[in-house]
């Protein structure tokens, strides 16, 4: 009986204790108000960058660890965003892909009007070719990625999907949705697929 009372007491005290330790609740509407008021000089064509789509909002709310149901919804939604080349060929020119992998150009407010095409900036986060020493570690190493997968067709498609929209594979992945967000074109993504998946690419040498 005393044990029962103790449990009851703890339960009774619980909400009060947690409320006093809790910080004010910041919902997405409160954040959005702050964002709107902090970017007053943004030109009209930049306004969409101040808002979040459903996926961004969910990943922010769950700090990239969404519950299973939310994750499934995200993956299904993002999968539907992927567009494929009309002729079905997913491998482009690895030499062009290499340039794109090196370039971080595009989308920053100093990049307008565009002086060159947008880059994929892959080396900011990934190791790719063994010859490039200046690579980041936010993403996994992709050194010999194609070779280690025997250049299989299934993996070619998987790589295309992952570049076009990584959240079609893993909900709330850190990597940008380069195709779905319109940063890279289908042709550019094909070139990057070639860089990762061609047997003659330095990534696989």
């Amino acid at each position, binding site marked *: 009986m005393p044990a029962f009372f103790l449990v009851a007491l703890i339960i009774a005290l619980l909400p009060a204790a947690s409320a006093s330790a809790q*910080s*004010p*609740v*910041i919902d997405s509407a*409160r*954040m959005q108000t*702050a*964002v709107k*008021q*902090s*970017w*007053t*000089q*943004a*030109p009209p064509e*930049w306004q969409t*960058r*101040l*808002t*979040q789509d459903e*996926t*961004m909002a969910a*990943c*922010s709310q769950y*700090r*990239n660890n969404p519950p299973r149901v939310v994750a499934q919804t995200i993956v299904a939604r993002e999968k539907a965003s992927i567009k494929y080349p009309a002729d079905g060929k997913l491998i482009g020119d690895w030499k062009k892909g290499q340039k794109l992998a090196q370039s971080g150009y595009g*989308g*920053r*407010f*100093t990049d307008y009007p565009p002086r060159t095409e947008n880059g994929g900036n892959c*080396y*900011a*986060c990934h190791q790719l070719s063994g010859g490039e*020493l*200046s*690579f*980041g*570690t*936010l993403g996994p190493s992709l050194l010999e990625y194609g070779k280690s997968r025997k250049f299989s067709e299934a993996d070619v498609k998987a790589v295309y999907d992952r570049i076009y929209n990584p959240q079609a594979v893993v909900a709330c992945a*850190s990597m*940008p*949705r380069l195709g779905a*967000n*319109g*940063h890279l074109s289908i042709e550019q993504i094909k070139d990057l697929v070639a860089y990762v998946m061609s047997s003659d690419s330095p990534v696989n040498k």
Partner: protein
Amino acid sequence: MPQQQEEGRVRRVRRATLWLLPWVVTGGLEITLAPSLAQDAIDASEKGIQRYRQMLKADPWSNPAMLDVDRGEALWKTPRGPKAVSLDGCDLGKGPGVVKGAFAELPRYFTDADRVMDAEARIVWCMEKLQGFERAALLKNPYPGGGRATKDIGALATYVAYESNGQKLMPTLDHPKEKEALALGEALFFRRGGPMDFACATCHADQGKRIRLQGLPPLSKPVEARKVVGEWPAYRVSSNHVMTMEHRIYDCFWQMRMPEVDLGSEVPVALTMYLVKTAEGGEINAPGLKR
């Protein structure tokens, strides 16, 4: 007075050595990058910066940012603006004219403005309300381009930070709006946005990560945040000027493909509150030195 003159003389003499120093950082890197492995390049770069930091410790006046501390002090004490008054009446939270120790408790809530402000936001407030400067003009292009000198707000913030050197970051967080700023800053740290889906946490949550060869401090971890947050404002060798914390955050948003965030607005102030609270107890060692 004689002591001040002496200090001024020492500063002028040592300025002559400043221009050699960037070589120390970049020199080692250039030599080793080509033939060796990435790790060696990082080590060389880190060693160069370490050496630079040791030299700074031995002779704090050799940090180029000290020029902005000097300039900021002069700007603070000189009558300026349409009302031709100095900033001696500016209340940074510890009473009008009290600069010493004020930075250690910023950002904080200010009754007169009825909002939470960091150093830069408060300096703009004082320049507008006390000196009569036009707010819109102060907020238009408030940061220097690469290689250009830090603007007045930045120099003033550098001076203000310097006057809390050696103290510990200790945000008061008494007022409900300060608590709200902290919660907002934390939420914003994890808010993903822009065409790259980036949040601050994308690069600054995990240990031991880097972009290209540049190491990334995990700013949501107190142990790590304490090491670096108190070093801002800092002289950035790669852009040849002092950057304030707000300028650094603005630069992150640039990389995140966001538009130009307003100086002193709620987002950078809330993020600063989150960073400072995470780094609570960390020593202020400003202006610092960055790659």
